[in-house]
Every structure is written in structure tokens, then in C-alpha cells.
């Protein structure tokens, strides 16, 4: 352990403040108006009126049910799919190919993916066009309620396509620590087929590691707004979408109702998590009985096939959706059932690029600021951990996940109300602080392992040559870790680019980014405009990833030992 150098012990505390400060302040700012306290709107009397108003809204039960059913449904499906993929294919060439196919899709912003999927599956969408009229006989689209169906199936499909890449990456990281290949080899030696062996011997250990990410998926799917606006129903919408509408109402009195709704949403998420925890016990109990039966897995080939098919379907949905957006952005008139536009034009890009530049700049500034701050805090924390021997406890990991588990819709409205009441002008910097809350955990998760895995003897050699800890950090450790640092930056950047609700609510509608524009345009339904903005948004998240690959390659073009570090 090295001593001396710049004092870093305060950084972890600052990091916790940056993470939890806005969440706790936001929750306080939600609870107070929900109980009737909102001086800005002349309300300063404790009461449960807001909850009565919420319950009186005729769509309340349906909206709440939708949130719960789509959230749990999307999580179960995503987890089942990822498990099947890993169980059926881990360690095979097909698996490495799937991994390469799915990982970049993590960077595709949710909103862009949702637009793309909407165009694929709509009754006038690409899939139906591909089969019409020669197969279906339809020369006009069938009147079927596919997108925005009242059961939320389209919403669930969109969520699953986006959550599978996330859970898969989390599972891959966990697999490394689960001693999977050897366990599976033993199981196979005992005559278990591939899927059954993996489920029985490897899955329990992997699941323990990915439990928190699964809860993140659950909380996110239950309370998502942008995807639900695009793919979810509207008669009524999900609870979080309705809360967002109330929050944007110029009548401040609706904020009380929105705050009450946000607390109900939080309770629903916590309830669903408790339900999920019970489900874990139940599945565990059933699975132990299943293990004891000793079945070697007759249905295995089927399970393997389903897993592969579903993974390819999820990836294709996003990739084809993006391709569809790209074509729309260059399309002239494009009628049903033509598979391609009647003509191509640059008109959409010419029209939208001038207006897009400001949004692009804002997106870039917010993402660069939030990610840089996050990177400094994370490197500071990890270096402090290294220098002073702090070891993050289990509870500290929970802290990291807290902003991802508390639904955004539960604390962002409160944060907005607080800013409004305190008279702080909404603008760029509060939005950066809000983005930081979501960027920080991802930057930490993606940098922590490589940072900790760095060979400390390089540092010892440096110290022996007279370098202090700061010099070791700046001249040896960070340069050697440039690839993971840049990757962490890219992950953080992509997370910031994709933020819809924090930008909209904390920015008070005045901070305009590619994502807020794209979601606003989605309501307008002009697919050419959506195509232009969706592509720009996707490019903005991909660019840092490309740089994270390119810069180390350039820096180390003459360093053999760093080539595949």
C-alpha cells in the first residue's frame, strides 16, 4: 500500500453525496407535495387530497396494473432469455458471435430502439409490408391493435429487446467469477445435457451475482417513460407516463397529484421487488426438487433452439429497426405496402440539421460534463480504495445501485419541484447533476474491475524508482488503463445521451437534447424527422465507443505488450 500523494479520502464521501444527494432531495421533494405541501402553488396544508385526486382519476387502476404487468413481464422474459442463451451456448463459437452482435446494442438509446421496433411491428410496418400483398392479400394495412395495445405486449417486446443486451453483459461479467466451465464440465461428465447441466450447476451462482442488475431491470421496466410513450398504450397510459403528463401541466395544482402518483409508483416498484424476492425463494425451492430428480435434460435441444432464436430475434429487431429509421430519414414518399420508398431525397436532413445543431451541442456538453465528473470521482474512489485499503462493503454496492433501483419518476419530479420552489433557475447545471446520478454507477461498474485487476507490481517498480503515488497514477496506471478508462467514458456518455426524463424534468423543458427532441417528435409521428433524430442520437452514443477502440490502437501502435491489454 502506498502512502502520501494528494489526499483522496474525501472523494468517496463526495461521490456518495453526488449519488444520493439528488435522490434523497428528490424523494423529499416528492413526499412533501404528495402530502399537500407546495408553497409555490399556495398549498401549505397537510392532507391526503392529492391521493384522493389520484384515486379519483378513472384510469388509475388500469395504469397501475399496466406498470406492474409490463414491468414484471419484461423482466421475466429478459432474464429467461439471457439464461437460455448462456445455458445453451456459453463457450461455443455461436455464443461469441452473439456476444459481438448484442454488446454494441447496449449503446443504442432506448427511444431510438423503440421507434425502430414500432415501425417493424406496426400493421403498416416493415414485417407486414414484406409479406404484402403477395402472401397476405392486404393492399391496405389490417386494422389491428399491435403497437400501443392495451395489454402492453408491444411495450414488453421493446423492453425485452433492449434489456437482453444489458443483462447478457452483466451475466458475462458474472460468469468469469462463477467458475462456470469447470462446473459445467463436471455436470456434463455426469451425463447432464448442456442446458440442464448449466441451469443446475452454474445458474445459482451466476444469479447471485446478477441479482442487483435484475432489480435494476425490474425497476426500469416498471417505470420507464420514453419507451412507454412510443410503444405503450394510451387509454390509459402506464402510471409513469401519466405522472409525466401531470408534471408538464402548466397548472401547478397537478403537481400534487403527480407527486402522489410518484409515491404510488415507488411503492409498486418496492412491492414488485418484494414479490420478486419471494419468487426467488419459490423458484429456488422448486429448482432444488428439480435438481434432485436427476433428469438429464430431454428437452435440451428445444431449449437451446429457443434461446438462439430469441437472441437473434432481439438483436434483429433493434438492428432492422435502426435500418428502417435510416431509410426513412432519406425517404421521399413511401406508401404501403412498398418495401422501399418510392424515391430518395436529402430533404429531411437539409430541413433538420440546422435546428439539430443546438440540440447536438447541448447533448454533447451535458454528456461530456457529467461523464468527466463521474470519471474523476470514480478514479478518485478506486485510487483511494487502493491507497488506503478501503474495501467497499456489500452495502456500498447497494448504494451504487440505489439511483438505478429507485424509479426515476419517483424522485425527479421532486427534484424539479424543489428547484422551482427554491427559485434556482433550471438550466444546464442542474441537469448535469441529475445525469451524474445515473452516469456514475455505470462508469463505476465498468471501470472497477479492470482498475482493481491492474498489476500492482508496476506501481512498486515505479515507487522504487522514486515516483510518488500521484506520479504512479498519472504516468503508469492511467496510461496502462487507457482502454478501460475510455470504455467507461463511452458507457457514461451513452447513458447521458439516452437520458430523457432527467433532462425533461430537471431542465424544466428548456434544456433540449437529441433525446428530448426525438421523443417529442415521436409523438408527431413524422418518421423522417424521427429517423434523422434517432440516427443522430444513436451516432452520438456510438462515437465515444468507436473512439475507445481507436485511440488505444493509435497510442499503442508500437507497443506490442499493450495490443490486447
Amino acid at each position, binding site marked *: 500500500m502506498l502512502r502520501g500523494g494528494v489526499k483522496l479520502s474525501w472523494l468517496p464521501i463526495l461521490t456518495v453525496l453526488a449519488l444520493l444527494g439528488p435522490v434523497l432531495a428528490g424523494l423529499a421533494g416528492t413526499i412533501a407535495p404528495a402530502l399537500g405541501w407546495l408553497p409555490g402553488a399556495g398549498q401549505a396544508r397537510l392532507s391526503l387530497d392529492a391521493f384522493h385526486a389520484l384515486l379519483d382519476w378513472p384510469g388509475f387502476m388500469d395504469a397501475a396494473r399496466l406498470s406492474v404487468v409490463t414491468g414484471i413481464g419484461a423482466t421475466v422474459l429478459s432474464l429467461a432469455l439471457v439464461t437460455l442463451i448462456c445455458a445453451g451456448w456459453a463457450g461455443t463459437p455461436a455464443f461469441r458471435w452473439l456476444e459481438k452482435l448484442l454488446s454494441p446494442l447496449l449503446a443504442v438509446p432506448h427511444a431510438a430502439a423503440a421507434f425502430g421496433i414500432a415501425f417493424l411491428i406496426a400493421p403498416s410496418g416493415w414485417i407486414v409490408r414484406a409479406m404484402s400483398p403477395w402472401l397476405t392479400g392486404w393492399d391496405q394495412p389490417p386494422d389491428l391493435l399491435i403497437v400501443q395495445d392495451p395489454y402492453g405486449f408491444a411495450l414488453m417486446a421493446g423492453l425485452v429487446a433492449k434489456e437482453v443486451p444489458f443483462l447478457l453483459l452483466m451475466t458475462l461479467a458474472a460468469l468469469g467469477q462463477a467458475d462456470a466451465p469447470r462446473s459445467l464440465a463436471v455436470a456434463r461428465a455426469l451425463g447432464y445435457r448442456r442446458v440442464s447441466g448449466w441451469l443446475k450447476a452454474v445458474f445459482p451462482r451466476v444469479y447471485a451475482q446478477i441479482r442487483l442488475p435484475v432489480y435494476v431491470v425490474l425497476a426500469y421496466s416498471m417505470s420507464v417513460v420514453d419507451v412507454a410513450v412510443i410503444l405503450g398504450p394510451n387509454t390509459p397510459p402506464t402510471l409513469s407516463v401519466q405522472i409525466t403528463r401531470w408534471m408538464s401541466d402548466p397548472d401547478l395544482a397537478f403537481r400534487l397529484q403527480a407527486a402522489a402518483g410518484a409515491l404510488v409508483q415507488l411503492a409498486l416498484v418496492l412491492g414488485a421487488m418484494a414479490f420478486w424476492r419471494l419468487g426467488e425463494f419459490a423458484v429456488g425451492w422448486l429448482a432444488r426438487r428439480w435438481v434432485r430428480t436427476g433428469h438429464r435434460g430431454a428437452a435440451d435441444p428445444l431449449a437451446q433452439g429457443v434461446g438462439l432464436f430469441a437472441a437473434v430475434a432481439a438483436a434483429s429487431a433493434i438492428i432492422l429497426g435502426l435500418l428502417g429509421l435510416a431509410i426513412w430519414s432519406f425517404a421521399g414518399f413511401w*406508401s404501403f405496402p412498398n418495401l422501399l420508398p418510392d424515391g430518395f431525397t436529402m430533404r429531411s436532413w437539409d430541413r433538420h440539421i440546422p435546428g439539430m445543431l443546438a440540440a447536438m451541442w447541448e447533448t454533447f456538453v451535458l454528456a461530456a460534463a457529467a461523464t468527466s465528473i463521474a470519471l474523476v470521482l470514480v478514479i478518485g474512489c478506486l485510487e483511494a480504495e487502493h491507497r488506503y485499503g478501503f474495501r467497499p462493503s456489500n452495502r456500498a454496492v447497494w448504494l451504487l445501485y440505489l439511483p438505478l433501483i429507485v424509479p426515476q419518476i419517483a424522485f425527479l419530479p421532486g427534484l424539479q419541484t424543489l428547484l422551482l420552489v427554491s427559485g434556482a433557475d433550471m438550466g444546464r447545471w442542474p441537469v448535469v447533476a441529475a445525469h451524474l446520478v445515473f452516469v456514475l454507477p455505470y462508469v463505476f461498474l465498468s471501470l472497477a474491475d479492470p482498475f482493481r485487476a491492474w498489476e500492482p507490481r508496476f506501481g512498486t517498480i515505479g515507487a522504487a524508482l522514486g515516483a510518488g503515488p500521484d506520479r504512479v497514477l498519472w504516468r503508469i496506471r492511467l496510461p496502462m488503463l487507457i482502454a478501460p478508462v475510455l470504455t467507461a467514458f463511452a458507457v457514461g456518455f451513452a447513458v447521458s445521451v439516452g437520458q430523457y426524463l432527467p433532462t425533461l424534468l430537471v431542465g424544466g423543458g428548456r434544456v433540449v437534447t437529441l433525446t428530448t427532441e426525438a421523443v417529442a417528435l415521436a409523438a*408527431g409521428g413524422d418518421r423522417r424527422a424521427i429517423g434523422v433524430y434517432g440516427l443522430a442520437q444513436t451516432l452520438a452514443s456510438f462515437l465515444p465507443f468507436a473512439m475507445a477502440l481507436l485511440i488505444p490502437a493509435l497510442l499503442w501502435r508500437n507497443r506490442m505488450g499493450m495490443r490486447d491489454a
Partner: protein
Amino acid sequence: MKLSTIIAALGLAAMPSLVLADTDPADWPAVTAAAKGQEVFWNAWGGSTTTNDFLAWVGQRVSEEYGVTLTHVKLTDTADAVSRVLAEKAAGQDTGGAIDMIWINGANFAAMKEQDLLFGPFAEQLPNWAVVDVDGKTVQTDFTVPVEGYESPWAMAQVVFIHDTARLADPLPSMNALLEWSKSNPGRFTFPQPPDFLGSTFLKQALIDLTDDASPLQAPATDENYASVTAPLWDFLEELTPTLWRQGRAYPQTGPRQLQLIADGEIDLAISFSPGEASTAIANFQLPETARTFVLDKGTLGNASFVAIPYNSSATEGAMVVANFLLSPEAQARAQDPSILGYGTVLNMDALQDDQQAAFDALDLGVATLTPAQLGTALPEPHPSWMTRIEADWIIRYGVSE
């Protein structure tokens, strides 16, 4: 009404107007002299590329002509600007406010006027008021509320229906004809989901067309007459809704979304509040070239867009100069050009000089745009209280029914 709730919430009592115009609007040379060098912050909805471009052009022209610098503050909702003026009044900021001019009409205007948040009267003193079509266009009342010079008109909007003639060849003369057509062609019509502005407009348009006596709509709705006056509307919707696109279980969320649905072949008929929208959309590949527009035989709803000046504007004279420029034949002809904006003019053609008229006559209104004669006289908007109640009722009956 929403805004009145805010006003009540902020504890504001109606106060006598504090307006002390630095310059008499009638003394036009003094107004232009004072306006020179002023910076005008125009708060206007910024959701459309074409309007934004038009406002930028206005800024360029008033800068050349009058030395007024115009800045477009892009709003997502006009009520934001109203809230801001209210907040300034609550904070005692009676001069030097952040907003100098607002694109406004309807409920927002009614609320601001009622609370003495507006500068004026000034509109009828503007030099170009002389060429405004006071008799033919509803420019002196705004959703039944008397304007009294507190806002200046600059564009006319009127309800039209866009149809794809390839699939629905002939215009529909009435709401009952629309219902019959929708019954025999189920799934081919829908409207934006109320409380979207255009969706609510469809409900009002239906009521006006169905009712035998539209006169109660010009006064506030009362508990006594509401049910009986709106009964024809609910009977109509009870029959229409099951025949709508997706059986009325889903609705487009905005007006423009309907255009995409027509282009996709999902619907054949849509409502619009802009007679030129279809022509512009055809030019932008958003509608098939077979799209056309029509109005109902008994006429359709129309209203004017206005600009108003907050009582605490820091550039009152500059704002009046802009309002007057918006009424110039030059600006009006440009706004009516469908390749620019496609908004209806508020001017009286007979009051213009020949060369000015010629500029309007030379406009190619676009293949799908009706001539002013075909549009006919616009029907007046009902009192805002009708819309509020109908919207709330629609949401309970159809908006959360799944």
C-alpha cells in the same frame, strides 16, 4: 380553467390595470422612434420548423426597417409564458419583464386579460389595422371573449378535413355523413386523443354540426344546459367510436401523427386546423399526391392567432412595431404562401392596393388547399367552458376505457 387555478393559487386578486404606456399607441411616429434599438423577446410556440423560419424572417425585416431586434423564445406550451408573467406579477416585477410579446389565443388570452396582465388597448391603433378584415374574420372576439384591442391578430386558422381521394373520393358534407361513411368503412378514420387541442376541436366541430341550435355555445356552459346541449355529441360518439381506427381503443397522440397514418394507408380521413397543411405535407412527401381537403356544408370552426404584449414588457413600442409589421401585406402574403407557412390572412383584400392584392393572387395555394371562397365563413369558437367540460367527459367515457 387551468390558469385561473394558478392565479387563485398564487393568491392574486384582480387589481386595477397598472399599464402606463410610455408612448401613446395612436402617436405612431413616437412609437417607431421609441422602438428603435429595442430588443423584443417574442415567446411563441417553437414546435414547427416552418413557423420558426417565418419568425426568423420577421426578425430580419423589422431589424432592417425599424431597428428592432426580435428574439424568438421557443415555447413548448404557451401557458409557460402566461405562468411566467403571473410569477413576475406575484414577485412585484411590474416593469422590465422577461417577455415582450406572446403568440396567444383562446383560454390563455382570456386568463391574461381577466387578470390585467396585458398591455393595451393598442391593436386598433396600429396603422395596418385599417386593412384588417374586421367584418369577415373573427378578429374582435377570441373564443367569444371580446378582444378590445388587447391583442393583435396575425393569422387565421380554420378546420378542414384531409382525405385521400384515392380511397375516399368525395367530400363528406356533414358529421352525419362522416358517421355513415365510417360505419361502412370501419377502421378508416380517427382523431387525435383529447385533451390534444386538435382532438378537442374535433369534438367541438362535431357538436356544432350536429346541434340544431348552436347559440347556447356562445355563452358559458351551465349545469342546467350542459347535458341537453351536448347530448347529440355523445349519441354521435357512441355510434362512431366502435367504427374508428383500432375500434377507438387507441388514438394518435397529435395532429401530425394522422398524416403519417394516411401515408401508411391506415386511415383515409383526418382533421386539420390549417387549410394549407395538406399541400405543405404533400410537398414534404408526408402525404400522397392524391390528398385533398374539404369543409362541411354548414361550415367549420375558425379562429385567429394573435399577439399580445404583457403589461410589464420591457419593449412595448418594439412589440407594437412587430405586431404592426405582422399585419403588413408583405408579411401576410408571405405567411399565406404554402411553401413558407400556409396560414390564412386576416386582411381584407378589397382594402388593399392593386399591387398588394396581386401579391396574394399570385400565390399558388397548393393542390390541396381550398380557396378563401371555398373555405367560406368560419364558424365562431364556443365559449372555452364548453371545451373544458367536454374534454373531461370524453376522457372518462373513452380516454381510459381499456
